[in-house]
């Protein structure tokens, strides 16, 4: 893929693929429509991660499912609503140019192998396995907290595709570096860190939990320092490209994640205040930073903080 501006190279390498720039759409954000993906591509996004897809369609939880908490932080318990593997294969069937990772969620090896078989012929970059959704039982984090299950699922996906696999880890009740290590040992090519953190908000007038599921996942500004820490620790301890995620709202945050050790950076909640143009704004900011720091390529800053 070409860069928009030949003077400042923002392209980054992720396993065996290249992205024109390190910005990616985080899973679950605007993530079910090919038309939206094409619009984001015009906004200069580096790559897309789709909503996490399951074998069967899922309606998810009743609303409220997404709550703005103020200060650029959000709480959600969408319940992994998604159109399922069949409808989503049709959705992506005409994809020509958009670099897409499909996020997969499920509770058994069988489910994952079924999905990868259905998706693998599509024009997609690869997969992200969601082992860290903190608010749906028997899926996501409940799988991610069980190293044996992680091992089996990643191996299953590995057996069914040659495309790059990223495993998305979060802050659950197993150490994030350990979980990443299990995933890498099982065949993951990339680690995405982090997902939302289990959290809750209660209204003091009615004295009731706000989310229909009561407990959900915290995203946005609040979690950035935790995401930075996880990326730093994983990239320092393991030999694996890491995609940073959590609380990015400007090009500065992308740079901070890359300095911490991220090869690319996913962006989610901030779309609630900025809209899709944020990708254009961020890549413009990154170009200026690369120029100011006189870098040949933004990749030079990946993990540079490990030196200090």
């Amino acid at each position, binding site marked *: 893929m070409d860069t928009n501006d030949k003077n400042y190279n923002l392209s980054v390498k992720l396993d065996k693929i290249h992205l024109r720039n390190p910005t990616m759409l985080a899973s*679950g*954000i*605007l*993530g*079910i*429509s090919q*038309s*939206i993906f*094409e*619009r984001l591509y015009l906004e200069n996004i580096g790559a897309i991660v789709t*909503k996490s897809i399951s074998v069967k*369609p*899922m*309606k*998810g939880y*009743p*609303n*409220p*499912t*997404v*709550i*703005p908490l*103020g*200060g*650029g932080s*959000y709480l*959600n318990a*969408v319940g992994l*609503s*998604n*159109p*399922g593997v069949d*409808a989503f294969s049709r959705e992506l069937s005409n994809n020509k140019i958009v670099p897409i990772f499909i996020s997969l969620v499920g509770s058994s090896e069988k489910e994952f192998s079924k999905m990868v078989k259905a998706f693998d012929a599509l024009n997609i970059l690869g997969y992200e396995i969601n082992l860290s959704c903190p608010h749906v039982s028997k899926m996501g984090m409940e799988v991610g907290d069980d190293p044996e299950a992680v091992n089996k699922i990643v191996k299953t996906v590995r057996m069914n595709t040659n495309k790059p696999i990223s495993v998305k880890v979060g802050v659950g009740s197993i150490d994030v570096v350990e979980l990443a290590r299990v995933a890498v040992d099982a065949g993951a090519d990339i680690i995405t860190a982090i997902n939302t953190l289990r959290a809750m908000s209660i*209204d003091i*007038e*009615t004295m*009731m*939990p*706000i989310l*229909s599921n009561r407990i959900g996942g915290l995203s946005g500004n609040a979690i950035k320092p935790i995401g930075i820490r996880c990326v730093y620790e994983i990239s320092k301890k393991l030999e694996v490209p890491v995609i940073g995620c959590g609380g990015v*709202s*400007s090009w500065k945050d992308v740079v901070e994640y890359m300095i911490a050790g991220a090869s690319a950076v996913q962006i*989610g*909640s*901030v*779309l*609630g*205040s*900025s*809209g899709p143009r944020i990708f254009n704004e961020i890549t413009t900011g990154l170009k200026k930073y690369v120029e100011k720091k006189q870098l040949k390529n933004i990749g030079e800053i990946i993990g540079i903080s490990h030196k200090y």
Partner: protein
Amino acid sequence: MEFHTSINNRRIVRIEETVSETPTVKTLVFKDDLSYTAKPGQFLMIWIPRIEEIPMSVMINSKEGYAAVTIRKSGIGSTALFERKKGDLIGLRGPYGNEFIIRENYKKILIIGGGTGLVPLLRLASYASKKKLKITIVLGAKTKKEVFFEKMAKKLTEHVDSSVIICTDDGSYGLKGTTVNVMSNLVRNNTFDCVYTCGPELMMRGIVEIANKNSIPVQASLERYMKCGIGICGSCCLDNMLVCQDGTVFNGKQLSKILDFGISYRDKDGQKIRYN
């Protein structure tokens, strides 16, 4: 980086008045400054504690600092809201979304709506009447007992050279025919600077087609399934547009490019469903 902290703040308000519009449509009045100043076309996310959160257009209310929502009872959420009584608490955030635009040069406008689609249109009519525009309001329903907001529409337009036209599919009240039929006739004998519409999508599709064919500017406020209301979750997507953030109001030019307009919508799980 800009945070809409105030509109995103969840406010808990007390229902101060309820108005029964039809056996299945009710208006709930509450006090909320941000809703009072909502622009026509904007909506609130209304929280019915421990039951649902649903998008609702902001209804006008005559008292300063007050606003309202007008609900048609249908599924779980809207029925629960419909059943709330004076004194009950509901939560709200917003108003969200863009607005109907009245250009400086507009002198005469046509407003066409049906059912709760009238809600944003009455707010628009109130703005337009303050600007002294000539307003024709077409108010459609299936049958007589489903007609509501007639008095309000007339009151809003009484002091300008305006008119309110009622039509019912079965002719039980006002003209017989759909709003689309009425519009076809109206545009033959009148020049409107803009047509504004909100209501069932198939109706709006008909109206936009006529407007586009007659080269009349048109704006329509659309509905899609919404979770976040603020451009994060993607559930409201319509082609490459987000109804909550890029809309709810789209103009004729945009709509002519949106392939799914009047054709299909996405269900709660994101699957596309065709309108029948």
